[in-house]
């Protein structure tokens, strides 16, 4: 077959057919992969929930609620065992990191103590801020946030007068990480108020924290007034 000459109709026809074909292919591929993609995202979140919460027997995702703290929306996933609350997982997002979104899911027990956390999404610098998944569970020094509560300890880097060791050379990422945890804790407190659950102490970390959410955020909630 001879090569098509570069006349205008030929060019339009050829490019047109190629783009239509590729559009068709993409459409088919999108339809085929839509369900598996959604499912794998759900599975990732379900796996994270199982990790950050104490053992539970309900479906926290089915009971999910959103709470607004100072303009930020946090997702609350309540965990129950035999109908009694055993804790709550809170998913929070911040743009205060070094690059892009940081999405963290953090589990609190009934007293507001951090059970565990998972970083669901981050694009921090490799070797520095990207260490957040491991750093804040490292028992050495005052790095770990596990077993601590933002109501008792100040969840800010030591540099800002807080009680948590920031990642070496990644203070911005550390601040972002801890600010999500503080916000998640506030969201948890708000949720506890609406549910008539035990309400943990107010986070006192607003003194000296630079990226602190406004702490009067829960005043507007209907239960409080």
């Amino acid at each position: 077959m001879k090569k098509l000459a570069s006349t205008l109709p030929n060019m339009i026809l050829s490019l047109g057919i190629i783009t239509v074909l590729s559009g068709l292919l993409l459409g088919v591929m999108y339809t085929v992969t839509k369900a598996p993609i959604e499912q794998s995202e759900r599975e990732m979140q379900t796996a994270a929930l199982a990790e950050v919460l104490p053992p539970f027997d309900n479906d926290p995702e089915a009971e999910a609620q959103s709470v607004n703290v100072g303009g930020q929306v946090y997702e609350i996933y309540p965990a129950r065992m035999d109908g009694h609350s055993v804790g709550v997982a809170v998913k929070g997002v911040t743009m205060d990191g070094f690059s892009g979104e940081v999405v963290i899911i953090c589990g609190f027990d009934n007293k507001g103590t951090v059970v565990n956390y998972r970083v669901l999404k981050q694009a921090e610098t490799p070797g520095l801020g990207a260490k957040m998944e491991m750093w804040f569970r490292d028992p050495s020094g005052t790095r770990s946030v596990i077993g601590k509560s933002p109501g008792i300890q100040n969840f800010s880097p030591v540099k800002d007068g807080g009680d948590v060791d920031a990642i070496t050379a990644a203070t911005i990422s550390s601040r972002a990480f801890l600010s999500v945890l503080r916000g998640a804790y506030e969201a948890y407190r708000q949720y506890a108020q609406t549910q008539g659950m035990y309400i943990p102490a107010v986070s006192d970390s607003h003194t000296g924290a630079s990226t602190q959410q406004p702490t009067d955020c829960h005043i507007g909630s209907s239960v409080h007034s």
Partner: protein
Amino acid sequence: MKKYLRLLYNGIIPANPVFVLLLGMCATLGTTSSALNGLMMGIATAAVLICSNAAISLLKNVIPDKVRIPAYIVIIATFVTVLQLAISAWMPALNASLGIFIPLIVVNCILLGRAEAFAGKNGVIASLIDGLGCGIGFIFALTLLGAVREFLGTGHIFGYEIYSEDYGMLIFVLAPGAFIALGYLIAIVSRLRGLSSNT
């Protein structure tokens, strides 16, 4: 048969896309922070390269010369998007570590370069083999670079600890280390190629 073997070998060493042709530097420098990332990026790129080479070779006679570049780009971008959807659907773990780099394959010069230099002029089977050879060369180069950077930067290779991470030179995981490591690897490969062509 011999011709095809030579084609295959050509892409791996004498015309290695990274070490010799210096194509696709963006993806090369960006993704090779560890050996595994390098390997995965190499495989993903090779898959797209083989498909796009074959498709372009098949379509070369119905693509008028003046619009061949846009046509090639559409074909390449289609394959990249298909690959991205497939990875995020069926390999979520890989998607988590490599996700943001997959769209970068579109702008990888190797794809357009091979389409323009080879697939647009040769038959389907030869183009397939050429894509396979260049793909293997690219996988080899990215894995090697990733392994060197991971080893110097964190003391690991493919996640296995060789020495403690505390002694690692962090710069090799970051962008400057990519340039340094790539420079030395290119120098070593050039030297080895010089030696082998003299004998």
